[in-house]
C-alpha cells in the first residue's frame, strides 16, 4: 500500500448532491481556499441523483407555501421531535436555491404564466415541484465544480477522520479502490456528504445491491463521524420506504399522486389519505399487509391514456430509468394492472426520515471543524433540495472556519493504526469474504431489527453482530475492489449496532412504523419528547443520551399536532 499525502484547507467527503454544492459554495465564499471534493465513485455520475431526479419533494415557493407552514408540516410529520431552527434554515433558503439552480440550467416544471407548477402530496401543504427533464442534474453540478476550480479525487474510499488534541478535525484518510494506495489528507475542516446508510438491511430479493439508495452509500460517513467523536441523532427513526416489490425503487406516489394515482389494497381501495412518506403512512401500509387485505399496490389503471404516458415518460427516463425495463419483464403495464408494492428493508436517511449525524442550523456537527449535509446529517425530510441548501450552508460556514483557524498537525500514530487496519484484509490468504460478512450482517438486521421492534430480538441481534464483528477481524480481500467492500462491511456492522442501541434506548413507540416497539406500544411524551444522541463513550463503546427538543419558533396547536396520526381512510361500518 503506497502512501499518498495531500494538503487542503477543506475536504468535502462525497460528491453526490450536497457535496458538490458545499465545495462550490466554499470556493465562492473564499476563492483562495484549497478545496478537495473526494468520492469513492466518479463525481460525474455518483450518488442518489446519478441519473437525475423526478422532482423536488419539498420546495418552499412563495405563493404556494411559506417557510413557517413548511416547518409546521415537518414538525407534525415527525411527531414533534425536530430542531425547528434547523428545518427553518432549510425552508428559508429553499426558494433562493431553486432560483439559483434554475439559473444554472436545471429545468423545473412551470405553468403557462411561468410560475413553478407546484403539486400537493403532503398532508397539509403543497411542496412538490416536478422536473420532467431532471436527468441533467449531475452535468450541471459538474460544470459548476469546474467553474469554481474545485479539485476532485475520484475512486478514493474515505474510511476515517483524523482529529487533534482538542478533538478538532485535522485530516481525512482513505484508499483508492483500484490501486489500494493509502491517502492521508491534512486539512482544517471537512464536510461529510456521504448520503444515506442504505445497506444496513437486506432487500427481500436477497440481492445485496438491490437497495433503494445508491449502494455506494453504505453508512461510511455515519461510521467515520462516530469514530471521530461526533454525536448521531435519533437513529431509531429508521428509513423504511414503500417501494415497487423486488425492484426496490420508488413507484413513485409523489409523481403519480398529483395525476390521480394512489396506493391501494388488493381490492383496489384506497386505505390511506395521503401518500407522503411518513412513519404513520408506513405503519398503515404494514397493517394493510398484515390484515389480509394485501398485497399493497400502486393504482394507475383508472387513469386516461395520455396521463399514463406522461407518467411513464417521467418514471422511465429519469432518476431510476430501469423501472420500465423491470415492468416489461414482469408484464406490468400501468394501463392494465396495479403495480405490486412492498415495504423496504431499514436504513438511515434524513432525506426521507430524520436520523443521522447530529447537526445544527449551521451544519455543524459536535466535532469542531466537522460539518455534515444531506442524507447523512440529521435535518429531517431534507430530500434533494435540503442536501443542496445544507451543502451551501456547510460550504459557507466551513470556509469561514478555515479562514479563522491555524494549520493542523497530523497524528502519525493514528495514521499508522488506520493504515494497518485498512490494509490487513489484503494481506490474508484465508478468511470470510466481504460478501459473506456483509450478507450475514444484513440478514441478521432483517431477522432481528426490522420493525415491529421487540426487545428480546434486539438483544439477540446485538449478540450476533458482536460475533460477526469478531469474524470480520479475519476478513479476506484479494484485490482493492474487494477491499472497498470489506471496509464497507465494517461500516455496515457499525450502523447495525447503532440502529439496535438507539432503538433499545427509546422506550416508547414513535414515528409510526419507523420506531414501533411491541414492548412499549404507546407514545410517551412525558419521558421521551426529546432527541436521542448516540456517541462513542470514554470506554470506546456506544453510549446513549437524551437531548431536549429545542424551543419551537413556529408554534403548533393541538388540533394540528396529530394530523399525521389520522391517515387511515375512515370507512363506514360494512353491513353484516
Amino acid at each position, binding site marked *: 500500500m503506497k502512501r499518498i499525502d495531500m494538503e487542503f484547507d477543506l475536504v468535502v467527503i462525497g460528491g453526490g448532491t450536497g457535496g458538490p454544492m458545499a465545495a462550490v459554495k466554499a470556493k465562492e465564499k473564499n476563492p483562495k481556499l484549497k478545496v478537495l471534493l473526494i468520492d469513492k465513485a466518479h463525481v460525474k*455520475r455518483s450518488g442518489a441523483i446519478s441519473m437525475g431526479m423526478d422532482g423536488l419533494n419539498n420546495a418552499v415557493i412563495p405563493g404556494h407555501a411559506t417557510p413557517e407552514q413548511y416547518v409546521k408540516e415537518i414538525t407534525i410529520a415527525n411527531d414533534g421531535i425536530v430542531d425547528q431552527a434547523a428545518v427553518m434554515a432549510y425552508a428559508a433558503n429553499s426558494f433562493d436555491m431553486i432560483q439559483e439552480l434554475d439559473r444554472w440550467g436545471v429545468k423545473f416544471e412551470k405553468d403557462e404564466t411561468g410560475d413553478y407548477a407546484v403539486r400537493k402530496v403532503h398532508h397539509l401543504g403543497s411542496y412538490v415541484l416536478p422536473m420532467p427533464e431532471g436527468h441533467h442534474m449531475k452535468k450541471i453540478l459538474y460544470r459548476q465544480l469546474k467553474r469554481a476550480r474545485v479539485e476532485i479525487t475520484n475512486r478514493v474510499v474515505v474510511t476515517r477522520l483524523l482529529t487533534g488534541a482538542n478533538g478538532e478535525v485535522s485530516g481525512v484518510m482513505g484508499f483508492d479502490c483500484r490501486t489500494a494506495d493509502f491517502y492521508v489528507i491534512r486539512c482544517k475542516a471537512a464536510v461529510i456528504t456521504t448520503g444515506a446508510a442504505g445497506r444496513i438491511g437486506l432487500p427481500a430479493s436477497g440481492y*445485496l445491491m438491490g437497495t433503494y439508495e445508491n449502494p*455506494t452509500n453504505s453508512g461510511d460517513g455515519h461510521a467515520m463521524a462516530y469514530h471521530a467523536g461526533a454525536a448521531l441523532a435519533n437513529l431509531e427513526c429508521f428509513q423504511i420506504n414503500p417501494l415497487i416489490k423486488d425492484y426496490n425503487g420508488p413507484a413513485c406516489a409523489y409523481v403519480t399522486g398529483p395525476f390521480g394515482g394512489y396506493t391501494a389494497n388488493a381490492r383496489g381501495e384506497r386505505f390511506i389519505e395521503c401518500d407522503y412518506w411518513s412513519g404513520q403512512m408506513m405503519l398503515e401500509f404494514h397493517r394493510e399487509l398484515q390484515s389480509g387485505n394485501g398485497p399493497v399496490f400502486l393504482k394507475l389503471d383508472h387513469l386516461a391514456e395520455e396521463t399514463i404516458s406522461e407518467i411513464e415518460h417521467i418514471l422511465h427516463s429519469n432518476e431510476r430509468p430501469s423501472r420500465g425495463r*423491470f415492468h416489461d419483464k414482469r408484464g406490468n403495464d400501468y394501463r392494465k394492472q396495479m403495480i405490486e408494492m412492498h415495504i423496504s428493508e431499514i436504513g438511515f436517511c434524513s432525506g426521507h426520515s430524520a436520523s443521522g449525524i447530529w447537526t445544527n442550523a449551521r451544519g455543524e456537527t459536535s466535532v469542531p471543524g466537522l460539518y455534515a449535509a444531506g442524507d447523512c446529517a440529521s435535518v429531517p425530510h431534507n430530500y434533494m433540495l435540503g442536501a443542496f441548501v445544507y451543502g451551501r450552508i456547510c460550504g459557507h460556514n466551513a470556509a469561514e472556519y478555515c479562514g479563522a483557524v491555524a494549520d493542523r498537525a497530523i497524528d502519525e500514530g493514528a495514521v499508522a493504526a488506520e493504515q494497518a487496519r485498512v490494509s490487513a484484509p489484503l494481506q490474508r490468504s484465508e478468511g470470510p469474504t466481504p460478501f459473506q460478512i456483509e450478507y450475514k450482517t444484513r440478514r441478521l438486521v432483517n431477522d432481528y431489527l426490522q420493525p415491529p421492534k421487540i426487545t428480546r430480538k434486539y438483544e439477540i441481534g446485538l449478540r450476533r453482530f458482536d460475533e460477526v464483528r469478531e469474524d470480520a477481524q479475519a476478513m479476506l480481500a484479494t484485490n482493492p475492489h474487494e477491499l472497498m467492500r470489506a471496509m464497507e462491511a465494517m461500516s455496515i456492522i457499525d450502523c447495525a449496532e447503532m440502529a439496535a442501541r438507539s432503538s433499545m434506548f427509546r422506550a416508547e413507540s414513535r414515528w409510526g412504523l419507523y420506531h414501533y416497539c411491541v414492548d412499549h406500544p404507546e407514545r410517551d411524551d412525558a419521558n421521551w419528547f426529546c432527541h436521542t444522541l448516540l456517541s462513542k463513550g470514554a470506554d470506546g463503546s456506544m453510549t446513549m443520551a437524551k437531548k431536549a427538543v429545542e424551543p419551537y419558533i413556529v408554534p403548533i396547536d393541538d388540533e394540528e399536532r396529530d394530523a399525521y396520526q389520522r391517515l387511515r381512510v375512515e370507512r363506514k361500518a360494512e353491513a353484516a
Partner: protein
Amino acid sequence: MSIATTLTQAPVKVHEDKCIAEKGCTVCVDVCPLDVLAIDLVKKKAFMQFDECWYCLPCETDCPTGAVEVSIPYLLR
C-alpha cells in the same frame, strides 16, 4: 486455500463488436458508481467484473457506441 468461486450470470452485457475500448475508451468503467466494470486487457473490451449492479444505467446511457446492455439483475427480475 478454502476459497471457492461461484459462477453468476452478470446483468450487464457488452456487445464486443460495438465496444471501442481498444481505441482508448473507458467511459462505462469511469461512470459506474459501483465500479463493477473493467476493460479486459487481452481482448481490449469492456466487461462486467463484479455482480454488484444497481441497474442505474449510466454505463449504457454514456457509452458512445451503444455497446452496453443492462438487464435487471436476475434475483430481482
